[in-house]
């Protein structure tokens, strides 16, 4: 499993390609109508915007020499109206643009989020969570502007280039060629800087992601840092990450900021060339009745300025494109993350589970070549309760994870009521399993909402009944706001035992057909634990249960005990049978008794 930590840059093996570009276009396809509208409006606006130099030239060349004061004022009003029209057309376009771009981001973010819901534990276990978060939130935000405004602007600028070209051609073909001569120089500049630009953008995005990941992890682990007085050292590491990120951001700025000055200077060269060419090369073209048409030359200069405007804009879009591509790569990377556990092509829904469970020579490995479960077989009848005991890391938690198909077995088969789990839909299976994991997780909200997470349509009364069954009611009702006591992420402020009881109530509320308790009550005091067991006994009558626990009191009451060691079942049987057999379990149990009650 390729794991990632805060200071490891994530490898990007997706090169810039048209495929990826096309793929990002698929997000805007849905809004083609809006794009068409924006496009038409912009076209109109750019056309109107191009009229203004024409009007200006007309006033200077015709009206002023003819001294037509009234006509100047009329044209001036016309000029104003054209401008106002342009402004409001642009406004209408922006309105559509804003809504569309926001919709595109929302769509893309939903896709990423929905895909994340399909990914297995291994995805989340192998990288800092801050890096995942950044993709869903920040990267998508960064891409949105490019996908709507950037792309549209690119198309529009190209179009206005063509329009300007038309206007220029209408004045003088030769002069137009002079204006165009500057273009190849700019393209050469782009071509030369592109690879570096791209490299630095990527680096910079990576470094920023490292910064966020480290920050997020340190906030989550702040107590450990304080307990181990590592504050200064971590701040030093953080400073290092920041310095790296600054370095690449600046590198990329050195190139990125060069775009405007280069094109601005080029535009001036072109402007000078226009003058020079008009005077030295094509002077005759501008002479009408023996007078040089200065208006025509200045109009040409003005168009050449306007010609470089779009070129500069295109340069900016290009910068945006570079940015967006490095973000898109990471977004698509999430979307391309293979779903390891998913419904098979012919998967059917699991009917209501009775509770017969069988493992047939089940093998499993998290990482290739490192088997964790090495051929486990057993049969459990509906209604049986099974305790899994054995050394830490022997594979107990893995066995019960396989039961809910959180992972696919690498060998053998698991069957519930005779149906192979590989052939049923995940949701129909997991919905009927009540799994309480080692890591309790409390959501931000309140206690009641946290319990209700187990069954969303449960009434308040049902939630409270579940809490009473696991004796969580005792401490909840003592709190100032009772069940409505706010909880924050991870349940800071609640004790570990309280969190376990709340998640237990949540599991119970889901009314599982098979109950799986993985150290569900390890931090709960023994008395409460006994009360919990009594409380849930009636509720779970006739349901199969698997319990991983280390307290003998929890284990002893189970129908059968599997002693797991080294990925296989070393012993199995009831407490009395295993005690009589005098094996590993017997040794475990008696040594405990000796320990507590002394030799006697």
């Amino acid at each position, binding site marked *: 499993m390729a794991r990632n930590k805060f200071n490891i840059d994530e490898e990007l093996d997706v090169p810039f390609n048209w495929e990826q570009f096309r793929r990002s276009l698929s997000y805007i396809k849905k809004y083609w109508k809006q794009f068409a509208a924006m496009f038409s409006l912009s076209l109109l606006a750019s056309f109107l915007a191009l009229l203004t130099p024409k009007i200006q030239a007309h006033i200077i060349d015709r009206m002023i020499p003819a001294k037509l004061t009234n006509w100047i004022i009329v044209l001036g009003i016309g000029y104003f109206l054209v401008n106002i029209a342009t402004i409001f057309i642009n406004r209408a376009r922006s309105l559509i643009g804003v809504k569309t771009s926001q919709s595109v981001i929302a769509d893309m973010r939903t896709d990423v989020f929905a895909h994340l819901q399909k990914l297995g534990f291994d995805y989340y276990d192998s990288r800092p969570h801050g890096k995942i978060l950044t993709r869903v939130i920040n990267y998508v935000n960064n891409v949105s502007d490019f996908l709507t405004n950037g792309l549209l602007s690119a198309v529009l600028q190209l179009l206005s280039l063509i329009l300007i070209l038309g206007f220029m051609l209408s004045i003088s073909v030769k002069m137009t060629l002079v204006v165009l001569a500057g273009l190849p120089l700019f393209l050469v500049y782009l071509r030369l800087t592109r690879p570096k630009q791209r490299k630095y953008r990527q680096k910079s995005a990576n470094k920023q992601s490292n910064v966020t990941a480290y920050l997020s992890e340190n906030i989550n682990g702040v107590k450990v840092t304080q307990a181990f007085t590592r504050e200064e050292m971590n701040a030093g590491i953080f400073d290092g990450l920041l310095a790296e990120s600054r370095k690449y951001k600046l590198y990329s700025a050195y190139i990125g900021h060069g775009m405007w000055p280069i094109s601005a200077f080029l535009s001036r060269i072109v402007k000078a060339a226009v003058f020079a060419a008009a005077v030295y090369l094509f002077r005759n073209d501008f002479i009408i009745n023996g007078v040089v048409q200065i208006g025509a030359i200045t109009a040409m200069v003005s168009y050449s300025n306007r010609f470089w405007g779009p070129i500069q804009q295109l340069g900016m879009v290009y910068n945006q494109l570079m940015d967006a591509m490095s973000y898109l790569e990471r977004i698509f990377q999430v979307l391309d993350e293979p779903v390891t556990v998913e419904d098979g092509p012919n998967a059917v829904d699991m009917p209501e589970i009775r509770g017969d469970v069988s493992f047939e020579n089940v093998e499993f490995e998290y990482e290739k070549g490192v088997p964790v479960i090495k051929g486990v077989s057993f049969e459990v009848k509906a209604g049986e309760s099974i305790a899994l005991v054995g050394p830490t890391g022997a594979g107990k938690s893995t066995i019960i994870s396989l039961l809910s198909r959180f992972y696919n077995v690498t060998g053998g088969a698991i069957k519930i009521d005779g149906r192979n789990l590989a052939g049923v839909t995940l949701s129909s299976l997991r919905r009927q399993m009540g799994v309480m994991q080692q890591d309790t997780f409390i959501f931000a909200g309140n206690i009641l909402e946290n319990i209700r997470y187990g069954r969303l349509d449960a009434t308040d009364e049902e939630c409270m009944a579940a809490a009473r069954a696991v004796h969580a009611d005792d401490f909840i009702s003592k709190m100032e706001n009772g069940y409505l006591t706010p909880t924050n992420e991870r349940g800071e402020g609640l004790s570990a035992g309280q969190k376990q009881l709340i998640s237990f109530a949540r599991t119970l509320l889901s009314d599982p057909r098979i109950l799986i308790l993985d150290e569900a009550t390890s931090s*709960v005091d023994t008395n409460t634990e006994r009360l919990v067991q009594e409380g849930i006994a009636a509720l779970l009558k006739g349901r199969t249960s698997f319990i991983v626990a280390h307290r003998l009191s929890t284990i002893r009451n189970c129908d059968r005990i599997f002693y797991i060691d080294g990925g296989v079942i070393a012993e199995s049987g009831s407490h009395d049978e295993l005690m009589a057999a005098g094996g590993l379990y017997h040794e475990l149990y008696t040594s405990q008794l000796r320990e507590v009650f002394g030799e006697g």
Partner: protein
Amino acid sequence: MAYKWAIQWMGKYKRRLVLAIIFDIVGVGLMTWEPYIFSALIDDVMMPQRFELLLPMLGKALLVGLAFAACRYLTNILAEQAAETAIIRLKGALFRKLMALQPDYYRANKVGDIINKCTGDVEVINRFLSWVIPKSVEFALMLVCAIAVFMSVSWQYTLALLCITPFTAVIANRLGKKLHPAFRAVRKQLSELNTVVQENISGNRVVRAFVREDYEIDKFQKENRGYKERNIQANLIWLRYGPIIDSLASLITVVNLTLGAVLTVKGSITLGELNLFLTFAWALNEPMLMLGMIINEVQRFHASIEKVRELYYHDVDIRDPETDKSPAAVKGDIRLENVSLSYGGARALDGINLEIKAGQTVGVMGPTGSGKTTLASVIARFADVTEGSVKIDGVDVRDYPLRKLRGSIALTMQDVFLFSDTVESNIAYGVPDTPMENVLACARAADADDFIRAMPDGYDTIVGERGTGLSGGQKQRISLARALAKNAPILILDDTTSAVDMETERRIQERLRERPAKSTTIIIAQRVTSVRHADKIVILDRGRIVEEGSHEELMRRRGYYYKTCAMQHGLAESAAKGGEG
């Protein structure tokens, strides 16, 4: 003041910002000069057809253009350098603050929110420093230059143009006032969205277990849509006022052109001057057009810096004492004198008196929520007592510098947190320079060596954030090894072996007892086997000590401890009696 506060982070890079502004000013100067050259080009070269002057003139124009482009580049680069520097310093300072804040801050603030302050909000400040400051100077100067140019030709004319500006100012001001709350709303919604995603990621196991993917997507969609709406709202405000500002700007151009043309007809100004006016209309307009954008950025800046400063100036309640009264070397005597602690009215600890001699081991048991973890917290000063005092070697913990106090205590926490780093780095977390032998020795003492070696990269294996992917018992043992590596005089183990099987736990206990340097040890546990060998066992209930004594003494008392023992081993009364003898 917010601006000064933001700029101070540049430190000596402030000079670069000044330099950037200087280049900016020079740039504006060159930009103002340029049209004169072109105007002269028309009036003195083109009109009289003195084309022999053309080339030198164009040469001058190009030189000015080149200098202008260079100034622009330098402005951008220097401002960016200064801003980036300020940003990383600010981020570093915020990080240090976060490392100093106590648990109640983290209880009151969402992680997503905090991260957002340090990233998104700081980026807004970055944009302010690198873009808004130089641009504002540039536009202000541009406006001044343009006005000066117009004035130099005709003051009446200038006045006519300037009549329009007050309207722009009024509109711009109104825009700013409306935008501020809209941006706050966007920010707030972003933090909601962040929280939902963050929780979904860290709670992914629960989501899968309860098949709540669709529910989560719905929850996410609600916030996602909300974020979209808020963004649109903010933009709508922008779209309401923007066109008015644009129209006013356009009015300037129109008046300029029409009035200028009429004046030219009348012969008050030359054609070259008219051209100059037309060129400078841009310099009058641009600042007005950009005014809205700048106001927008300034509003965002204020909204963000507010958040950042709130974090930066947040009170740290648990601080170093004025004077350090701590002993030179900590032995590890712990005494709690009448210690009480209240959380919002409820008493978590209630008049605790407890003495632990250096080198002793004390076991702490009690029902869920009885105050066991709180007890550990007040010793390591993660919370300060509300009454009484906690003393180590006779000195109140509040008189120890925090570094020294916490440096003397090795603490394992119930909620094990491992960093996404190698196993080795995790164990050596408290003592990064410790030799590998010490890491190995501590891993062995915590009975973690075997399973670590069995992992694909052994001690170099990178574990997931919080240690996901490891079993509960494995995490606990790494966390124990991490505490042992610190080799502190006081060791507090909070629920450290609850997920460890009994065999392993016994091995760990034996190894702990065999350790050469004996730490004062507090073991908080639910299992009797965890505290069985302690010198003293304390039972807490509702923040009070209800039983205290050795294993044998408490067994004889037949109270909570005895009952727990019997229950945990599923024994009838008789068995318990037999054991007692």
